[in-house]
C-alpha cells in the first residue's frame, strides 16, 4: 500500500493556538518568529487581493473585495446560516463515516483473520475499490434517488475502502511470534484478538480511520455538489450559480476549517489511544 503517505503533513505547521501560547510563556522565540513569518504570505495575498479589487482590476463577480467576503462571513455567522449548513454536512459525514468505518473494520478483521474469507472477498472488493467514489454517485442516484440515503451510502463507501484494506493489512502484519505468546499463555480466541491482534494492528487501523475520514469528507463535498438542497456543498453550488463568489469563498473556508479540525481531532485521539505505544514509535 503506497497509498498511505498522502497525508504526511508538511513541517510542523505553526498553528495558531499552541504557538501563541508558547510565545506567551516566553521561552520559544523561534516558534514565534516562525509563526510571524508564516503569516507574511497570507497577509501579502490578502493585501494584493484588497488592492486588486479596490482598484477595480477584476470585476466584482470574479473577485469580490475581501471586506465584502468578510461582511458576508459575519452575516452568515450571525444568521446562523453557515452553522446550519455545516451542521447538516457534519451530521451526514458522521453517520456515513460510522457506517462505513464499522463495516470496514468488520470486513477488514474477517479478511485479516481468515485466509478463506480473504481469498473469497479480496478480488471482488479490489475490483469495486478500483472505481472512484465519485464514479459511483450517478449509478447510486438512479437506484436510491437523491435523498439522504444516497449521501450516507456514498460517504460510507468513502470510508469503507481504506478502513478495510488497512485493518486487514494491520492484522496480517501482527508478528506470528506475538500470537504464539498468546498460545503459550493459553489465551482464548477472544483474548488473543483483544489483547494481541487488535493492539498490534492499531496503528494500521488508525491509518485506515484517517484515510476513511478524509475520503468521507471528499465524498460528502462531491455528493452535495451533485445533489443536495442543504449543506456546505450545496452552498458552494448555489453561490456559484448566483455568481455570489463571497458565499463560495466562505463555504470553501468552512470546508477547509472542518477538514482541518477533524484531522487535528484524529491526531489527538490517536496519540491518546496509542499512548502505551510511545516508546516504540519510530
Amino acid at each position, binding site marked *: 500500500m503506497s497509498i498511505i503517505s498522502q497525508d504526511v503533513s508538511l513541517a510542523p*505547521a505553526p498553528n495558531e493556538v499552541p504557538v501563541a501560547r508558547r510565545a506567551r510563556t516566553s521561552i520559544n522565540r523561534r516558534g514565534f518568529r516562525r509563526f510571524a513569518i508564516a503569516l507574511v*504570505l497570507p497577509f501579502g495575498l490578502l493585501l494584493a487581493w484588497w488592492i486588486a479589487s479596490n482598484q477595480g482590476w477584476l470585476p466584482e463577480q470574479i473577485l469580490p473585495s475581501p471586506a465584502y467576503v468578510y461582511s458576508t462571513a459575519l452575516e452568515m455567522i450571525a444568521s446562523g446560516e453557515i452553522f446550519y449548513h455545516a451542521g447538516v454536512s457534519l451530521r451526514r459525514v458522521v453517520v456515513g463515516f460510522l457506517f462505513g468505518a464499522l463495516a470496514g473494520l468488520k470486513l477488514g478483521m474477517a479478511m485479516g483473520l481468515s485466509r478463506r474469507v480473504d481469498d473469497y472477498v479480496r478480488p471482488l472488493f479490489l475490483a469495486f475499490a*478500483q472505481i*472512484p467514489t465519485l464514479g459511483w454517485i*450517478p*449509478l447510486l442516484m438512479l437506484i436510491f434517488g437523491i435523498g439522504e440515503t444516497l449521501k450516507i451510502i456514498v460517504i460510507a463507501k468513502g470510508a469503507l475502502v481504506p478502513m478495510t484494506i488497512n485493518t486487514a493489512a494491520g492484522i496480517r502484519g501482527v508478528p506470528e511470534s506475538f500470537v504464539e505468546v498468546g498460545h503459550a499463555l493459553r489465551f482464548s480466541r477472544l483474548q488473543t484478538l483483544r489483547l494481541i491482534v487488535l493492539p498490534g494492528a492499531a496503528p494500521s487501523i488508525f491509518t485506515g480511520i484517517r484515510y476513511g475520514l478524509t475520503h468521507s469528507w*471528499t465524498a460528502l463535498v462531491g455528493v452535495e455538489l451533485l445533489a443536495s438542497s442543504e449543506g456546505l456543498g450545496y452552498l458552494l453550488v448555489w453561490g456559484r450559480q448566483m455568481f455570489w463568489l463571497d458565499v*463560495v469563498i466562505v463555504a470553501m473556508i468552512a470546508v477547509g476549517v472542518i477538514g482541518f479540525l477533524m484531522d487535528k481531532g484524529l491526531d489527538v485521539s490517536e496519540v491518546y489511544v496509542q499512548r502505551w505505544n510511545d516508546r516504540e514509535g519510530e
Partner: protein
Amino acid sequence: MSVPASFRTRRLVRIRRGLTLPVVLLVLWEVSSRGGLVDARFLPSLEEVYFTAKRELIDNNLIGELGFSLFRNVVGFFIGSGLGILFATLLALSRTADALITPTFNGLKQISLLAWIPLISIWFGFGEQAKIVFVAIAAFIPVVLNTYEGMRNAPRDLIEVGHALQFTRVQRIARILVPSALPSIATGVHLGLIYSWLATVGAEYFLAVGPGVGGLIIAGRERFDMALVMVGVLILGVVGFILNRLAATVESYLLRWRATTH
C-alpha cells in the same frame, strides 16, 4: 514448472475462491433481471449492458470520448506533478521559502479538492482550461507533500558528505536530494496519477461541457439509462486500474537500483 505442487494447488484454490463471488453475483444478476425479480430499469440484463457497450464503442465513438478524458488527465497530470516537484524542491532547499510558504500551503490543502470546482469554474469557465487546471491541482498536492517529505528526510550523513566535498547547490540537488527522495517522489507521482484521474472524472461531472467519459455517465443518468451508466462506471474502473498498474511498473523500474543497494 519447478513450482512445488502445494504452492500450485494453493494458487488454484485462491483463483477458485476469488472467482466464486463474482460468478455468483453475475448469475444472480442475470436471473433476477431476466426473471423480472428486479425492475429492469434498475438492473438491466447483462446482454443489454453488453449491447450498450458495443453500441457506444462502435457507433458513438466511445474511444474518442475516452481519448478526450485521457488527454486532459495526462496534460493536467504532467503540469501538476512537474510544478509540484519544482515547488517542493524550492521549499526543501530554501529555509526562507519554507518558512514563508509551507504553512500557507498546508492551510490551503485542507480545502477538499472538489470544493475548488465552483471557484475554478468562475475563474476559468467550463471549458478545457478549467478542467486541466483542476486536474493539475489534484496532481500537484500529493506530489508536493511527498517530494518535500522525501527531500527533508535525506540522510544527514549524506548531506554532510556533500558539505565535505564542497558540493555546489546544483550538485547537492542532483547527487543527494533527488536520489534519496526518489522513492517518495515516486509515491507522490503515483498518488498524483490516481488523484488526477479522480479529478478528471470530477471535472467532467461538474464542468459538464464537452466530450468525456464523465459526461457520458451524467448523460446516462439524465436519460435514466442504467446500462449506459454501468458501462461508463466500468470504464472508469478499468482506466483507473490500468493507470495504477502503469504507475506501479514505472515506479519499480525507476527504483530498481534500490534493490541492489539494500
